[in-house]
């Protein structure tokens, strides 16, 4: 029966991912991290790494409850998260819209694409004095720098996704006499969605890096400012603990983005 189904082209593609293997990857990741941290601990204790430059990982772990209590980590964490959320919202609304605009107007695309790609590799964070002059020493400056830094990948991947839509799918739409707006909504946009999500993920990572960087530079806001303060106090275990919280923000964003992508792609 199976042979017949296969011959008739009725045999579906099977995806077999065993639960054992699914659990093995995170376990390997965590155990690798533990081994690396243990190695660092050993190297510091053996004085191969200078303990005045890199604190013991055990000291960093011990410092976490202290900075949570004394440095108001939950509030700072939330501040950084809020800035990142605002920057994300701007990236989704403005970035995708600009990508659509560039896709729609080919001349505009040809004129801007190289510049936008160059912007992706430019150290936007160094322009913070300009943003300070425009927006003042405020959360707006941090959000705007994060937004601008994350913009190029969102725009470029949106254009790439829309332009990469297979012609035959557009022909199907045309054969069903779809109007331009319908063609865009029903075919172009869903077809481009995977590429748009890649752009968003990259954009959000760029935004987050820049947000924490500017918080550090202008000594304002959430976790970036805390890292600055702890570094100036030479509280190295506390500083590395705070960096751990920045990584946590990044992980939260990454997981949220992945979940949103999975939900959106499955419910299209």
């Amino acid at each position: 029966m199976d042979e017949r189904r296969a011959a008739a082209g009725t045999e579906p593609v099977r995806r077999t991912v065993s639960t054992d293997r699914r659990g093995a990857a995170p376990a390997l990741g965590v155990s690798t991290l533990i081994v690396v941290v243990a190695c660092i601990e050993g190297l510091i204790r053996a004085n191969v790494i200078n303990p005045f430059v890199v604190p013991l990982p055990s000291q960093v772990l011990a410092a976490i409850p202290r900075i949570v209590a004394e440095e108001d980590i939950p509030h700072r964490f939330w501040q950084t998260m809020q800035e990142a959320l605002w920057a994300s919202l701007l990236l989704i609304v403005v970035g995708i819209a600009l990508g659509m605009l560039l896709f729609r107007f080919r001349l505009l695309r040809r004129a801007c694409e190289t510049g936008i790609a160059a912007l992706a590799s430019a150290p936007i964070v160094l322009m913070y004095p300009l943003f300070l002059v425009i927006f003042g020493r405020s959360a707006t400056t941090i959000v705007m720098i994060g937004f601008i830094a994350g913009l190029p990948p969102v725009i470029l991947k949106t254009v790439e996704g829309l332009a990469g839509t297979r012609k035959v799918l557009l022909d199907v739409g045309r054969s069903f006499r779809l109007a331009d707006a319908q063609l865009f909504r029903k075919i172009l946009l869903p077809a481009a969605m995977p590429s748009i999500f890649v752009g968003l993920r990259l954009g959000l990572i760029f935004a987050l890096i820049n947000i924490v960087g500017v918080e550090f530079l202008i000594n304002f806001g959430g976790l970036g400012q805390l890292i600055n303060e702890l570094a100036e106090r030479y509280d190295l275990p506390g500083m590395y603990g705070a960096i751990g919280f920045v990584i946590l923000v990044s992980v939260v964003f990454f997981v949220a983005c992945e979940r949103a992508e999975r939900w959106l792609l499955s419910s299209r």
Partner: protein
Amino acid sequence: MPFLAVTDIVKRFGAEDDAIVAIDGVSLDVAHGEFVSVIGPSGCGKSTLFNIIGGLIGDYEGRVSVGGEQVSGTHPAFGMVFQEESTFPWRTVLDNVAFPLELAGMGKRERHERALHFVSMVGLDGFERRYPSELSGGMRQRVSIARTLASEPRILLMDEPFAALDEQTRLLLGDKVLQIHQQLHQTTLLITHNITEAVQLSDRVLVMTYRPGRLKRSVAIDLPRPRSSEVVGSDAFGHYVAQIWSDLREEASRGIRDVESRALQGGEAP
């Protein structure tokens, strides 16, 4: 009066002086409920003809009429099935098939009920909630056929829908197409380069010349209906295949010679 009438179609590509004539004065008729195949070598303009009739190419000479009424551009009378895999990867089988019904403004429940009918017609019961990535190539092409049938076209246009499939799958899917044709009496124009497929499915086979594409011969296939792929073993089937191949062989050879000479002159890969 023929149901579909294609009259004196001429299609040129390129600028005036260097224009390449892809199709030169092709005329054909398809009666109501008839299954006609157009067969020709690669580069004879079959797919161009398909796109002209379906309204995807607008800049041509000649006329296309349905039921005596001249049509231009895409028209609700036509339902098109493409050579390339054309299911929407972000939609389930059911939602793919329900796509034209959704465009028609039909409610979700009603359109799903109707779509289920067409899913069943192409033999995909049980796969309604699967995504195209979970299906084989043959199954995806059947989803495309069901989606086109769901729009209830008066004329079904198919452009080498099984070209990417192996011979056994192609024959078995041919059976499915024959069953559907038997059930719906759907007027169908099939573009193909496969002689077996053309003879297995058609009432008539139209043979095209190599560039510029012209109609060379019309072969009436007088094999009994209902048919199945078992007809492939009959003497009459072999006779029709041989007859069409004798016409096609000359054109296919001319096509290969042309491609090779152009490759020699301009460095174009054969």
